[in-house]
């Protein structure tokens, strides 16, 4: 049809409306679109001196702004490190965190953040052809290095997700220890799945299920908005629920923080065991002194330790086999696998279904064979990835179990380096080195 119009030239222009009418008709008879560029109607030669307008192209953020973001991140981290380790000021940490929330959260709309960066890095490392931007890599790596030197500074003040939860903590309750420890497994599991789904090029589940990004953008899907609000509402009583029981980046930070070279401490000098800080931490990140007699590991504990250690390889293998075996279900999140499954199960759908995916697929150059080949490739990636994920989960369970039967003697109050967000609340409670702290007054009163 276009050929005819082209060659017929101007004389046919009068009839163009008729032809267009036919084309109109054709459109509704033959659905699907001719995506190839076709100059069906040549551009007119205007007589009245009409000038072609330009198509407007508003630029993305000014180039170089991401360097500024990076600089803000580094500054916030450096400043907070100083505040926490040297200045020991909860108040300033608080205000720094409010600034970070406003900047990274509400001004920058929460993207890109190191939490999501986990996925970009995984995809770049394992996926083919994904190109990372240096800013994303820096965003991912810098907080980790800082954590290795000074603990979870990023969580204290730079993470908008953490800060917004931190601000709503009003009446924190203590969760039973066993529950905390069990729920504490979730971030690692989430991390494992996030890496699997990113590395297979399927989707970024962390970003997809980020409850707070909708609040920063002042707009989200209904379900995500509800989720975000519920997390904040729960956060009034259960401090930082996302950070403690979901955040996959927090899982990495926890490990790094445990082995950090320096870390925030409750007391600037020697702990006097005044017990004041006992209830200061909303995150239950303070380890109390323990009674050695009561709590020392028993023979049964030793036996268990040996048993659990021996079970680790078994758990790794069992996990690897089981999770890899479940690749069928896991991989269905990938659109190719989903579509291929649908069409192979019922090839009739290719012609009958009005599902957008199927219609688009039918209109494309892809054949069912190509689709199935792609989907099979994705599945095999899930199978391979499943081994690593399952092994990782097995290791996680095994190590967590051995941890429950190791005993460490504590004589003073100290922060649990893994769980502590370095927010500095406990520092306010500690009377050491503060002559005008109410504790000393009480003490004096008692003496007099």
């Amino acid at each position, binding site marked *: 049809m276009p050929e005819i119009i082209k060659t017929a030239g101007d004389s046919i222009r009068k009839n163009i409306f008729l032809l267009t009418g036919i084309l109109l008709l054709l459109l509704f008879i033959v659905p699907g679109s001719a995506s190839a*560029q076709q100059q069906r109607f040549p551009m007119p030669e205007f007589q009245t001196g009409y000038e072609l307008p330009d198509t407007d192209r508003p630029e993305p953020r000014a180039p170089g702004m991401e360097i500024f973001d990076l600089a803000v991140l580094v500054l916030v981290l450096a400043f907070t490190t100083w505040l926490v380790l040297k200045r020991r000021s909860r108040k300033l940490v608080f205000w720094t965190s409010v600034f970070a929330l406003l900047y990274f959260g509400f001004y920058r709309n929460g993207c890109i953040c190191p939490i999501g960066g986990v996925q970009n890095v995984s995809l770049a490392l394992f996926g083919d*052809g994904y*190109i990372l931007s240096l800013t994303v890599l820096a965003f991912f790596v810098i907080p980790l290095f800082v954590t290795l030197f000074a603990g979870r500074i990023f969580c204290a003040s730079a993470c908008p997700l953490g800060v917004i939860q931190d*601000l*709503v903590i*009003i*009446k924190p309750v203590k969760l*039973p*220890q*066993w529950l905390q*420890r*069990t729920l504490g497994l979730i971030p690692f*599991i989430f991390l494992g799945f996030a890496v699997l789904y990113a590395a297979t090029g399927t989707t970024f589940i962390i970003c997809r299920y980020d409850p707070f990004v909708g*609040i920063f953008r*002042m*707009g989200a899907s*209904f379900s995500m908005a509800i989720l975000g*609000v519920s997390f*904040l509402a729960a956060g*009034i009583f259960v401090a930082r629920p996302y950070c403690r029981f979901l955040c996959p980046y927090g899982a990495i930070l926890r490990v790094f923080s445990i082995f950090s070279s320096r870390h925030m401490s409750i007391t600037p000098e020697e702990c006097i065991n005044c*017990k*004041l800080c*006992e209830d200061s931490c909303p995150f239950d990140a303070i380890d*109390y002194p*323990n009674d050695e007699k*009561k*709590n020392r590991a028993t023979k049964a504990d030793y036996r268990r330790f040996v048993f659990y250690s021996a079970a680790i390889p078994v*758990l790794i293998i*069992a*996990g690897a086999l089981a*999770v890899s*075996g*479940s690749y*069928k*279900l*896991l991989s*269905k999140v990938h659109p190719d*696998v989903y579509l*291929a*499954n649908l069409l*192979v199960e019922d*090839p009739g759908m290719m012609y009958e279904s009005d599902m957008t995916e199927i219609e688009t697929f039918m209109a494309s150059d892809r*054949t*069912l*064979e*190509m689709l*199935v*080949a792609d*989907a*099979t490739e994705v*599945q095999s990636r899930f199978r391979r990835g499943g081994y690593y994920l*399952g092994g990782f*989960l097995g290791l996680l*369970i095994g190590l967590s*179990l051995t941890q*429950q039967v190791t005993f460490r003697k504590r004589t003073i109050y100290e922060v649990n380096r893994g769980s502590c967000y370095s927010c500095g609340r406990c520092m*306010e*409670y500690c009377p050491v080195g503060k002559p005008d*702290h*109410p504790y000393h007054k009480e003490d004096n009163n008692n003496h007099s």
Partner: protein
Amino acid sequence: MLMDKSDNILNRARFIAVISGVFTALVSILLIFNYVQISLYDPLDSQVMKQMVARLSSEPGNEELIREIRQMDLLARRAYFNSLWQLRTGAALLLAGAITLIVSLRFIHRQDTHIEKPEGNNINEKQVRIRSQKWIAATGMIIILLAVLSALFSSNHLRQFDTERLADTASVDEEDGIEKLQISSRVAGDDPVGEPADEPEEETGEVVETISRITMADLNENHNSLRGPLGHGITPHSNLPLNWDGETGENILWKTEIEVHGYNSPVIWEDRMFFSGANDQRRVVYCLDRHSGVLLWEREATDITGSPSVPPETTDDTGLAAPSLTTDPYGVYAIFGTGDIIAFSHHGERLWARNLGVPENHYGHSSSLITWDGKVFVQYDTAAGSRLLALDVADGSTVWETPRDNDISWASPILIEQDGSMRLIVLSNPNLDAYDIDNGEQLWSVDCMSGEVGPSPAYGGGLVYAANEYATMVAVDPSDGSIVWEDRYYLPEVSSPVYHDGYLYIATTYAVLACFDAQTGDFIWEFDGEDRFYSSPVIAEGRIYAFDTSGRAYIIEPGDEPVLVSSPDLGDPIYSTPVFADGKLYIRSNTHVYCIGDN
């Protein structure tokens, strides 16, 4: 006094908290209400509006209706943008309310709490540990259990489609150690706009595929041309069905209806079956999964430079898709009566296409394609400018082209191996010729045939056989092209002769299947079928499989006397030649493709 003041502030804070709490709750409710309203009734996708517009097209002059539509349109747009505004404003108000609430609550709480000695936390560490162990172990168990359950119970239909076979393909390629040559295929995507092209890290270069030269072993596995390996009409496959019934469906494993008709016989490579169909509008290549009969892809031969806009006239008994396709590990090649020759990969990607010039042929071009050594051979005998071509399978370019001086031929070329090299045997009126497949040089030529030649040559027992109705049947020594014997007792018109074990069989259009001594040409026996033979007989498991045009097959144990093993009836007219692969027989009728095998 001081207490009063702080009490006062506290009271105010409490008041603010209550107010902002109520406010926040109200805004939330309004927002939810807005959401429900919009999701129940999208003003921009109003059914009422659509109905009104539809009504208008049936009564175009209805001014009243037009006014209503315009009002409705205005209302709808206003409703949409209003709701957007409500959402935005609501969200901002909600945020403001929430901030106020949180600040006041924090304030109140701060006033309430003082640093004081805690009452003491009695944590029973032992109990915590035991509980934690239980729960962590339970979590681990749950994960493994869920994974195992999903592994057992989730469905994966891809498996039944392809994975095993893909694996088979891969292993065959490796084990056989077939000589491989690299052929770079076209660039995968040709979109004018893609990811920016100046990206050095991106590897959008050429897709390199390996193709294997086919070996005899491949041909014996794969029925890749008309009448099987080298076109000789002998298949090495076994466990073939002896009985079936088109009416009851006995032993018919699947049948698939084909939209566009063609007289060509299917060809097979591994799990895929290829054939074509054509009418005046469409020229289609089909690919079926030969195990299930599912149509894997169909591709049209369009946009070929030089292809005639109006296809040449053909008769109904030939059509535009008479020539059978041929296939190799690299692709599948199809030629149509328009002179279009086109290649697709096994996955349906178009590799190349060209037009050889519209053939002058009053019935329609019928000579099938055959391939060997990376070349597709095209017998292109037309009323003017007959020639024989060898095309490169990779890009369709002409490797060699030899002009021929003869009349139109409807026969198809076959390959024979002689003195360690392959030769192409081509039959036409008036010659039977042999060509070197490497350079197209004619090795010998015998003037022995006349008429409109339909049957293709046969080969066996060191001789080449050629026959045609109203002409003759000859046996030629392929080493020098001399005629060994000649006979005219029974002659085929369409169906091609086949050699087996010292005998030569022909099937005629007057329903006779005849047997001759292949060395002497002596007539041995005849067998009467019920209907004419168009389909060529094929030797499988030492038996003759011959289909007559009514769709009845004759499975005959040959020898000095014919023994009819069975004569199953498909009940669907058959003009094409059967195809065999591991225990299954495939046959194409005018409307369907059948897969027959012992259930």
